[in-house]
């Protein structure tokens, strides 16, 4: 299974790298978000605020990439004619789909590097990590958690073709309710429980606290727990939706 996941990651990185539109979007998004964030918080003298803003921009870029790509992942396979072949394979379909969403999420490593470098070069933001080891741990944990949220989103699309737009329409609301754009404290109280259920909230918190200080372990643990929950729900959904798709003949419809 590990081999299948790694092979899937490799193949989907290759596919992403050979699409001009994907490469342009992946390259530009984080820099664009980071620039907006720097100017929004430009008046702040506290370098921590700017660093936090740039890290928020990174997680925004990761989520945008996953929201768009996960939403389209099944539809793309359907259009290529590979969806039926992947469903007809003897492995659980979730194990085939997970690398697609994790690969798009892992683009976040580039997003982070580009954002921090951009901030360092243009805005002279100091790069200082309070817990470098925990930072190195929190990044992959956040990437996998957001990738798993993408898997959960994608799992609904095997049957509901019309839900393709869902991925894109979740982009901005998730930025908002997970505190990537504005602090959660300024949002109404009922938003908090929703944000706790979303991986970007904890991913962002883990990355931020390992960078500027705090105790990121709780956020890292929550990210891991949410990843496991998303994966379990996605696998159950995929089984149910696969059966529905076999019953209603929606696998091959373009």
């Amino acid at each position, binding site marked *: 299974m590990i*081999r299948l996941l790694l092979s899937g990651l490799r193949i989907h990185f*290759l596919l992403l790298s050979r699409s001009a539109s994907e490469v342009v979007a992946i390259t530009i998004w984080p820099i664009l978000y980071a620039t907006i964030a720097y100017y929004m918080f430009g008046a702040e003298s506290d370098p921590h605020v700017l660093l936090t803003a740039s890290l928020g921009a990174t997680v925004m870029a990761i989520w945008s990439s996953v929201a768009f790509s996960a939403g389209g992942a099944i539809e793309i396979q359907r259009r290529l004619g590979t969806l039926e072949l992947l469903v007809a394979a*003897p492995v659980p379909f979730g194990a*085939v789909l997970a690398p697609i969403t994790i690969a798009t999420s892992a683009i976040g490593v580039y997003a982070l590097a580009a954002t921090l470098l951009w901030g360092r070069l243009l805005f002279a933001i100091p790069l200082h990590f309070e817990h470098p080891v925990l930072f190195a741990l929190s990044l992959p944990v956040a990437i996998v958690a957001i990738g798993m949220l993408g898997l959960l989103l994608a799992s609904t699309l095997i049957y509901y073709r019309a839900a393709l737009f869902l991925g894109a329409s979740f982009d901005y609301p998730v930025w908002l309710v997970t505190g990537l754009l504005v602090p959660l404290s300024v949002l109404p109280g009922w938003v908090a429980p929703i944000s706790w259920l979303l991986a970007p909230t904890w991913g962002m918190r883990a990355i931020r606290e390992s960078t500027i200080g705090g105790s990121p372990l709780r956020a890292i643990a929550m990210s891991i727990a949410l990843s496991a929950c998303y994966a379990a729900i996605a696998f159950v959904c995929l089984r149910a939706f696969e059966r529905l798709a076999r019953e*209603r*003949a929606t696998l091959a419809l373009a």
Partner: protein
Amino acid sequence: MAVEVIGLKRSYRPGRGVVRRRSREIEALRGITFSIERGELFGLLGPNGAGKTTTIKVLTTLLLPSAGTARVLGLDVARQPREVRRRIGYVFGGDRGLYDRLSALENLRYFADVYRVPARGQRARIDELLELVGLKGRERERVETYSRGMKQRLHIARGLLHDPPVLFLDEPTLGLDPVGARELRKTIARLQQAGKTILLTTHYMFEADELCQRIAVICGGKIVATGTPADLKGRIADRTIVEIEAFGASDAMIERLRSVDGVASVSVELREQAQVILVQSSRGSELVQPLLRELEDARVGKVVPRQPTLEDAYVDLVGSA
């Protein structure tokens, strides 16, 4: 028995409309029954929309049957899909089903992992298959640069990665040029000689005649005949086919041909400017003159009486279904 299909039915309810969703039921399969022996190359022959692809999709676990049962190597395709998938290969015709931006080798490596080919020996298996389908030396080129024939051969290699004992080939020569199609038929024949059980769907008669040991003719979701190519030809062995090349024959003239005494069936094919009228009868060449009298107002070219082929048997079966 490698494949056993008993009373298989499959219907669809395609929905229309957004606010008031309407749907009507379409019966794609109306209770078909057939079986395939181990090592046999079995053809499923029928016109477009006859139910060939639906049959294959049920057998490859991509569709659930509405009624009836289907087993592959004794495993129920509806209840044991995972077990069935380990033992079958599925190849369909056309350009789709591959990652065009990747090379053939990258495609095969990925599908080898998806189809659980053990890591040890995976490269050797891929090399062996590239050799079999004649793509050795071209495996590092992107699939988008391949011809249709090369893509189709790559599909075959992909379907064979996990060495399945049963292969489902859904119109694999669709859209191939004659040379590409001939090469592919040779590959299919080699697979059968190697002991694979193959279910091949096609609407090319000569292909079925050349390759298949037995054929089932499917039309309108029902099997209308099963047997060897010789059996099917034998159904109209007592008939003669009169092939008439005509220009400007009206529908009324064709109708009149059908009412000529002794005529069993009439079909018309268009070949460039000409209409080729195929008349089946049990009266042999003595029927030529009465037929030509009915075509007086049209221009008539060659008139050739000949022995029936599998295609004539097929036209007769489908026409009378």
